[in-house]
């Protein structure tokens, strides 16, 4: 074979590989863009002041909004984060810093299994743990269900991010006579915080859209509720109910709710990133 042919073949393979990679990326990005575009087309027209400030109208009446569901989702997600994030980070620290043993391997395996459990099953577990024992549906039960889903996601990303911190950084701290718990909190965790934050945000976004675990925990509510002990509305539940209804007005509102849900998730993540980026600058990067 001549060297000219070889060169031609190499270039051809190079082009083919680059094209394949670009094509596959385009499919992924294209899907995302298509979802956003479709949501905007279908939902943007129905998002108005009344939608964001009113509770749902009784069946048959046109109008009303999902203000109670937006607040309800915020409450449930707040509770889920308060429970899920500390447990997740704690488990992640254990796995990365102390878990090089059989118990650690077991915890890691359990977390992976838990990650793969269907969300409706998690909902049933929360039903059994909270709703059944308390005797009523509640926002808190919904928070527990979502928290159970967050823990393994946060734990595994925390572990991976901590393991990315070079061993030399830990050694430097030990070399100064800093105890291991101090090293973990003030140095290792601090070095990995950007990645851990990303993991938390991903877990948050993932559970924010969950419907199934809320069906028999938070249940849903047509009226205002701010109590963790009462059934409460949530945006995904409302989308589910409205999308399955026979009314055109409810279909419109379901699209609007989907758009609002995505906007709220993106908004929350952006806000956290913004606040975090500012605090890092203050501490001198």
């Amino acid at each position, binding site marked *: 074979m001549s060297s000219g042919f070889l060169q031609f073949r190499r270039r051809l393979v190079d082009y083919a590989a680059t094209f394949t990679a670009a094509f596959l990326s385009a499919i992924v990005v294209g899907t995302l863009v298509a979802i956003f575009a479709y949501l905007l087309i279908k939902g943007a027209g129905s998002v108005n002041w009344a939608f964001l400030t009113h509770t749902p109208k009784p069946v048959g009446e046109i109008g009303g909004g999902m203000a109670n569901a937006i607040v309800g989702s915020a409450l449930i997600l707040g509770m889920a984060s308060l429970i899920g994030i500390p447990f997740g980070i704690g488990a992640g620290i254990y796995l990365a810093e102390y878990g090089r043993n059989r118990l650690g391997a077991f915890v890691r395996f359990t977390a992976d299994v838990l990650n793969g459990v269907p969300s409706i099953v998690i909902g049933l577990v929360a039903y059994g743990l909270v709703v059944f024992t308390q005797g009523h549906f509640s926002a808190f039960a919904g928070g527990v269900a979502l928290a159970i889903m967050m823990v393994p996601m946060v734990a595994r990303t925390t572990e991976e991010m901590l393991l990315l911190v070079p061993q*030399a950084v830990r050694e430097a*701290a*030990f*070399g*100064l*006579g800093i105890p291991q718990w*101090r090293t973990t909190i*003030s140095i290792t965790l601090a070095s990995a915080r950007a990645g851990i934050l990303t993991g938390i945000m991903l877990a948050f976004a993932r559970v924010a859209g969950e419907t199934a675990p809320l069906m028999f925990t938070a249940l849903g509510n047509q009226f205002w509720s701010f109590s963790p002990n009462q059934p409460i509305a949530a945006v995904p539940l409302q989308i589910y109910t409205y999308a399955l209804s026979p009314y055109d007005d409810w279909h419109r509102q379901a699209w609007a709710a989907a758009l609002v849900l995505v906007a709220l998730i993106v908004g929350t993540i952006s806000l956290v990133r913004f606040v975090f980026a500012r605090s890092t600058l203050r501490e001198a*990067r």
Partner: protein
Amino acid sequence: MATAVEVSDLKAWFGRTEALHGINMAVEQAHATAVIGPSGCGKSTFIRCLNRMHETNPDARAEGEVKVGNWDIYDMPAVDVRRKVGMVFQKPNPFPSMSIYDNVAAGLKLNGTRNHKTLDDVVERSLQQSALWDEVKDVLKKKSGASLSGGQQQRLCIARALAVNPEVLLMDEPCSALDPISTAKIEDLIFELKQRLTIVIVTHNMQQASRVAEFTGFFLMGNLVEFDRTEKIFTNPSDKRTEDYITGRFG
């Protein structure tokens, strides 16, 4: 002349492998002692036993007696040992999430010192001692330790080690990742520091050993073959193996 570190029959293991076979050495106070030898001879393991860093590896353990002053370091909490016996590592390892100031203050701050005046004083003094103050005094809290050059980072790590006021400073090939100019600065620094501080330095560079250290120990396969005044080791070694090594016949 006084002994700062007295090592008696020190043995160290990685799992079942014995890496040090009973080392005896008396390190002179306020002098620099060099540890030389081919790769894998146990010299890093040896100095890591002097502040109990060796045992931070899983499966690693050590046996024997190491006395720093009157303290038996294997008979006290490891965190206390490491405040008396500081360490500078082969690759500069500043804390990436911290400013220059916080890097130097870390040892005190994370062990409970809160007084700002004290911290300011210690940070300035330590950076002066490590000859970095003039280069960083305007950006102490603005720049991250990781933003400095390799040589500056290593001097930052020396300042960080000095800030907790150790009696002994261990240096594990502190110049092997640095350029010749940075290396010269660190060597000058060792000259300054050993007026007050006991230094044990592992080095692969025999010229460096002869420049900075009054005493030199030659390690081979987990044994201390010869330990003497540096000029004796390099001009008239007693052991054939030492002579072979320093004349470049192996290693």
